């Protein structure tokens, strides 16, 4: 019985993924209405439960793809993969306000550069505080605090060891998970309620998955603005971290 069912779920993985996520959404919106009277948004609960299920998947299988490492849930990886994520994010731009984007253009551009610089500096300072003295190690960990793509790209370019690169990926993962969970909690304190601040927020945070999850849980109408700037961040980070930022670190550590 179970063998037959699990074989069907694995064979039709993508469809099984739709059922899994659909159930998770329904359950989350029910929890939101029943126990919080809608104060905690259903999508915020759904993302929280998604992260929780990812933790369980990782703990049970020891894999790196969360719940998708359990064979019957493998379709979740396709549904939540980069291809569909980017496709859906771009779709939200349909009907976005072009005037608002132009109006916040300068602040958006500044936020991307400021975001890379700040996250790198914070990560580098933490590395120094933990006793790292090699400029390559410091820069790789700093780059990881930008995003979990900038970290390994920088580490590879500078010839960092694989354990330092793993550390930089971990720092980026912590950042992306915390942005998803933290954004709805801090939104009202940082004025995240209009297209302008959403663009600045996207540029400062830079992690596309963090920003996509954070804005989904806060106000989905703000997503196109945040995603627009966030997608430039990783490119700018890969440009600055192994070059000017590394040279600066090396000069400071001598």
């Amino acid at each position: 019985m179970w063998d037959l069912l699990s074989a069907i779920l694995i064979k039709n993985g993508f469809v099984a993924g739709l059922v899994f996520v659909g159930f998770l959404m329904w359950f989350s919106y029910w929890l939101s209405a029943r126990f919080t009277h809608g104060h905690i948004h259903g999508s915020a609960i759904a993302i929280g439960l998604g992260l929780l299920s990812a933790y369980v998947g990782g703990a049970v299988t020891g894999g790196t793809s969360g719940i998708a490492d359990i064979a019957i849930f493998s379709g979740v990886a396709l549904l939540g993969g980069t291809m569909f994520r980017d496709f859906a994010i771009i779709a939200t731009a349909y009907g976005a306000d072009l005037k608002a984007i132009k109006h916040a253009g300068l602040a958006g551009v500044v936020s991307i550069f400021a975001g890379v610089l700040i996250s790198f500096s914070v990560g580098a300072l933490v590395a120094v505080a933990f006793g790292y003295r090699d400029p390559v190690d410091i820069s790789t960990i700093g780059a990881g605090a930008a995003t979990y793509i900038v970290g390994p790209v920088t580490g590879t370019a500078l010839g960092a060891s694989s354990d330092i690169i793993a550390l930089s990926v971990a720092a980026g993962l912590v950042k992306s998970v915390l942005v998803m969970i933290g954004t709805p909690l801090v939104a009202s304190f940082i004025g995240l309620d209009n297209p302008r601040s959403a663009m600045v927020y996207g540029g400062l945070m830079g992690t596309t998955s963090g920003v996509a999850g954070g804005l989904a849980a806060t106000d989905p109408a703000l997503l196109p603005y945040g995603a627009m700037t966030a997608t430039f961040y990783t490119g700018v980070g890969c440009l600055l971290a192994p070059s000017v930022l590394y040279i600066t670190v090396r000069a400071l550590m001598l």
Partner: protein
Amino acid sequence: MAIYGAALLAFCMLTGVYVGDVLGDLIGVSANVGGVGIAMMLLIMLSNIKSPYFQLKPASAAGIAFWSSMYIPIVVAMAAKQNVFSAVSSSAVAMVAGVLAVLVSFALVPTISRIGDKSSPASRSEPRQ
């Protein structure tokens, strides 16, 4: 037909990702530079064309609206496939670096939002509930 909207959306994505890759190549980084952002700008521009020959009918726009409405479930699926176990059980240096980077970045959102803002800053800084 819904496929017209979906195909337009797909065309924008592929074009944007291609331009983003070319940009990355030009500045010499092995990463996509703003591919999704470029695709979004392209979609906004194409959907704003006011030409009788190029007008997205409501039935065609439904092909875009569907994917837009799937964004939250897709993000939930994305959350469910993250390597949360490794993030939670990572070493102290990765944890502290990640957490501090987020906190400092959050704190700077209001400051940078004021750059180039022509509307009165006093009324903007009031919390709007």
